[in-house]
């Protein structure tokens, strides 16, 4: 009878066998790491060794349309530098990207080249995370001051020395539907938008567009987009002549509350006169334009591709000059290429890195097609760029570019953008009065400034 025979239980694995198995596994793992050689980024991360001399690690935060262009620019580099092994990594834009960049640099495993926003440069440089660049090193690769747009170049300096090579300027601009503008009688004989500068002229233009669309005159993101409200405020506040918001790397608050209240009062007018909806998110703002429910859109130039993909007739121009108290101003930022501080020169590979940066700048035309105004003057002044439409129509906005105030809590996607943007939104939606909004803004900035700086 079968069931009488007791089935032998499998012998318990002896400790020695378990140990032997473990060692074998570990050895196999180590072999796998060494087999793929020091060429493997993973292995390099574990062993801490420098990557092979021909390898160049490059980090960027570009996805979508910008990402496609960045890949094309990398292909151009690869085609010309076959001996270099370019490894590029793309991370999600914003804080996740900066967190990774910071931690990898602190952990002595930074990429050789990385993209940063110039508004973030003061904080990163002050924290000692960037390699200071020498002008003669840059000149060896043809990167001299006279070939760069003055504003981003100046912003690339920290403590009197260049710390980044600017790639572009991306200002906050005005999009408009040419078909709606035409019906609203806002186009002149050459098909150009008539003068929309000045507080009343702009609202009149929005109102004319509203009559055509039957819904709204223009749109701007407000829900979930504190940074867009910050850009609107920062542009107008500078046009009023309000100057800076903070000084001493953010340790002192110097906001001019009267100027802030004036700018906020105008922002409130836009929603109060019902020419712009008070509650729209980023995608909704674009959709209002592309579906013909709004004739104008205030947004960043990087949305040019998104609007173009909707296949509607549109054009772009610099943000209107609403106030004439100070030189023209519009909020802007720049992408720039930096060398995160490497543990030693061998890991830095200065000339290889600078050669790559030079190649990126030579591809500026590709980059400009994505909407950004090139910082590389040979491209910005080229006929090919001047023929790019609508890109060339707003290139002058870069002359009025104002960067975010320098502070450890400022810059792209920062707490300052959120705090100021929230205060602006509450005025824009009518929750708060302009004067109360300005007072709140000052109070919130003071709270931020009083905190211990992490740099």
């Amino acid at each position, binding site marked *: 009878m079968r069931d009488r025979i007791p089935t032998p239980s499998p012998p318990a694995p002896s400790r020695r066998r378990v140990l032997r198995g473990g060692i074998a596994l570990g050895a196999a793992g180590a072999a796998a790491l060494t087999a793929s050689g020091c060429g493997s980024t993973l292995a390099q991360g574990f062993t801490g060794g420098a990557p092979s001399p021909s390898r160049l690690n490059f980090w960027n935060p570009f996805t979508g349309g910008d990402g496609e262009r960045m890949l094309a620019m990398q292909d151009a580099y690869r085609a010309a530098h076959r001996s270099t092994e370019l490894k590029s990594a793309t991370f999600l834009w914003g804080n996740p990207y900066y967190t990774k960049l910071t931690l990898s640099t*602190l952990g002595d495993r930074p990429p050789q080249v990385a993209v940063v926003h110039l508004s973030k440069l003061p904080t990163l440089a002050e924290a000692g995370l960037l390699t200071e660049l020498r002008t003669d090193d840059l000149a060896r690769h043809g990167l001299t001051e006279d070939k760069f747009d003055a504003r981003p170049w100046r912003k690339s300096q920290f403590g009197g020395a260049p710390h980044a090579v600017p790639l572009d300027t991306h200002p906050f601009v005005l999009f408009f539907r040419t078909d709606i503008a035409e019906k609203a009688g806002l186009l002149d004989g050459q098909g150009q938008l008539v003068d929309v500068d000045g507080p009343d002229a702009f609202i009149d233009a929005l109102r004319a567009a509203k009559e055509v669309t039957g819904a709204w005159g223009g749109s701007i993101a407000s829900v979930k987009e504190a940074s867009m409200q910050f850009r609107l405020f920062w542009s107008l506040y500078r046009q009023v002549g309000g100057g800076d918001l903070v000084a001493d790397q953010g340790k002192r608050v110097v906001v001019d509350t009267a100027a802030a209240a004036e700018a906020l009062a105008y922002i409130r007018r836009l929603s109060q006169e019902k020419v712009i909806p008070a509650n729209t998110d980023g995608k909704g703002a674009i959709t*209002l334009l592309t579906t013909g429910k709004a004739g104008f859109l205030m947004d960043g130039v990087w949305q040019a591709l998104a609007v173009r993909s909707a296949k509607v007739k549109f054009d772009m121009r610099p943000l209107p000059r609403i106030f004439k108290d100070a030189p023209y101003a519009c909020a802007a930022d720049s992408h720039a290429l930096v060398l995160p501080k490497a543990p030693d020169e061998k890991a830095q590979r200065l000339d290889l890195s600078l050669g790559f940066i030079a190649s990126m700048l030579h591809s500026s035309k590709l980059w400009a097609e994505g909407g950004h105004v090139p910082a590389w003057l040979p491209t910005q002044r080229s006929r090919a760029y001047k023929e790019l439409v609508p890109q060339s129509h707003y290139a002058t906005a870069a002359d009025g570019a104002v960067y975010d105030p320098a502070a450890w809590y400022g810059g792209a996607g920062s707490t300052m953008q959120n705090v100021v943007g929230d205060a602006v939104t509450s005025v824009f939606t009518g929750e708060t009065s302009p004067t109360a909004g300005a007072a709140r803004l000052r109070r919130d900035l003071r709270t931020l400034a009083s905190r211990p700086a*992490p740099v």
Partner: protein
Amino acid sequence: MATTTAPTPTSSRGDRWAGPGMLLPFALFYLVFLVGPLIYTVVAGFFETSLLKSGLGDFAGLSNYTAVLGDAEFWRTLRNTLWFTVLTTVPLVLLSLALALLADRFVRGRWFFRFAFFAPFVLPSAVVSLLFMFIYADQLGLAQEAVKWFGVDTPPSWLGDPDWAMISIAAATVWWTIGFNFVLYLAGLQDVPREVHEAAAIDGAGPWQRIRHVVVPMLGRTTTLVTVLQVIASLKVFDQIYMMTAGGPDGSTRSSLQLIYDTGFVEGRVGYASTVSLLLFVVILLVSLVWFALVRRAEKES
């Protein structure tokens, strides 16, 4: 014929180590990825630890704690989190119980209701957020159109109005996560013996009385479990809020976890963020302990 005999147990040494040996890999993970970071969090809370600098930074003593406890934003995010917890826990417990009772009554097609109510739960938070951002969208969204149907001329801006934003997110969360509680209740219902139903029916109890006086009390333990799990999950809310409103409008939906994320990763103040997370940990622990104590007392009394 040779008799087969079972091999005598070779040694008790191997047996003794088998259990701990099997546990070892998990224990290591637990130490490295849970206990370790927890200790680091506690330590970092006493220092001005920065994301932009290596090391722990300057010793801060209790200054992070006094700063957090005096920070209006900390209390506001905590209030927001508790408000979200109330808005989600109450309907998620009551509604899932009601739905489970109803679905349980179907004999034919029960699988369909089980599937229908559980299906949203398998969606990733990103999908749910995107879906509801379309639904709640201003000017173009479904929710505004639907309200207009009922005769409301100016529908609220679901995600843009500080009074409505949290409620809208809570409603989306209820739709999304109700399936989990629903399944727990269905399992609890299977444990109610048929005889109890029959005995109650013989004693003259109608369907409603049977649910009220027999089924719901017998589901007491399930309700405790569901509520505690739900409270803890709601107190830890982050993803859907972060994706749908990013804490806005005007900070009205900013959760405690987002405050930790913002101060730790956006501003790079790891010491401060550690303190906030430790305090949130204490809050969650206290809420759970108080709840368990209340339930235990109620169980003793009955």
